[in-house]
C-alpha cells in the first residue's frame, strides 16, 4: 500500500512548506495547491484520490469555503478536510463546518497537533 496522500491548500508558500515538512516527517505524501481553483483541479484530475485536504480560508481566486462547497458536490470519493485558519471567530468555524470541514484549527498549529488531527482522520502515515 502506498502512503496516505494529503493536499495542502494555502496561498502562503511558507505555510505550505511548513505543513509539508511536518507531514512528510510523519510519513505522509504531500501535494500543494495555492488556491481553491488549483485544488479543485488537482482533486478532480488525480487518478488516486487524496486521503485528506488541509485548507486555508483566505485565498485569492477561490477561498477555502467555496473550495469545500464545490468539492463536496463533485462525484468523487469524499474524504475528510481540516480547515486551518488565522480566524477564530464563531461564524468562521460555523461556515467551515457548513461547507464540509471535519475540523477547524486556528493557526499557528503546532507540529504534534497537526499530525495528531491528521492521524485521527486518516490514520498514521508511512507505508502500511
Amino acid at each position, binding site marked *: 500500500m502506498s502512503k496516505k496522500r494529503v493536499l495542502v491548500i494555502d496561498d*502562503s*508558500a*511558507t*505555510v505550505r*512548506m*511548513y505543513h509539508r*515538512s511536518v507531514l512528510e516527517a510523519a510519513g505522509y505524501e504531500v501535494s500543494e495547491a495555492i488556491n481553491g*481553483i488549483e485544488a*479543485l*483541479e488537482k482533486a*478532480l*484530475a488525480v487518478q488516486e484520490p487524496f486521503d485528506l485536504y488541509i485548507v486555508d*480560508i*483566505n*485565498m*485569492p481566486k*477561490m*477561498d*477555502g*469555503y*467555496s473550495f469545500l462547497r*464545490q468539492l463536496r458536490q463533485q462525484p468523487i470519493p469524499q474524504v475528510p478536510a481540516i480547515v486551518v485558519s*488565522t*480566524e477564530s*471567530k464563531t*461564524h*468562521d468555524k460555523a*461556515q467551515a463546518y457548513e461547507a464540509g470541514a471535519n475540523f477547524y484549527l486556528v*493557526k*499557528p*498549529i*503546532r*507540529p504534534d497537533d497537526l499530525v495528531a488531527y491528521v492521524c485521527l482522520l486518516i490514520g498514521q502515515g508511512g507505508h502500511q
Partner: protein
Amino acid sequence: MAIVKQRQASPISQDERRHIRDLTGLIEQLSDPNPIARRWAARDMANYPDSVSALAGQLDRETNGTVREAILTTLMLIGNTDAVSALVRCLRSEDAALRNDAIEVMKNMPDAVSMIIRDLLRDPDPDVRIFAVNILESLRHPDVQKWLIEVISNDKDINVCSTAVDLLAEVGTEDALSALEALKGRFSEEPYIAFSVDVALKRIKDNG
C-alpha cells in the same frame, strides 16, 4: 477539468443600457432584478464619485458575482476616500469571497491605500490587520518593507506577525534582518515563527 468562473450565458441586450444614464437613473437600475442591468449600472457609475454610498449599499445585498465584481472595480476607479472606506468595510465582512475580492482590488490602489494603511495595520481586529498585510503583498509602494518591519516589531498577534514574515520573505531586504531575528526571540515558543523566520532570513540572504 478546468474550473471556469461563472459568466452570464445570455448576450448583453441593448435594452439593459437603454435607460437614462444619469446618476438617479443608474442608482435605480442598480437594484434592477436583471443582473445584467445591475452590472451595467455599476460600471457606468464610475463616472459619478457621488455614487459610492449607493454602490456600497448594493454590495451588502448583491448575490451575483459579476455584478459584485463590477461594483468593486467601480469603487477602485472612483478611488476617493468614501470608496476606500467602502472597501475597508468589506474587509470586516463575514463573506470570505467578498473580503478576498476587496483585498485584490485594494492592491491596485497604492496611493489611496497608503493614506489609510497605518490605521488598518493598527486596527483592533487582528483579522483586519492580517488583511492589511495581504494588501501590501502586491501594493507597489516604496514603504511596504518599512510597514512590515513595524508590524513584526510591534504587533502582539502571532498570526499578524507570521503573515508579515511570509511577505518579508518575498520582498524583504537586509534592512529587515534584525527585526526578523528579534521576532524569533519574541515568539521563541512558537515553532511556526521559528520556521517562517528561518525561511525569510535564508531567502533575503540568498537574494542579497
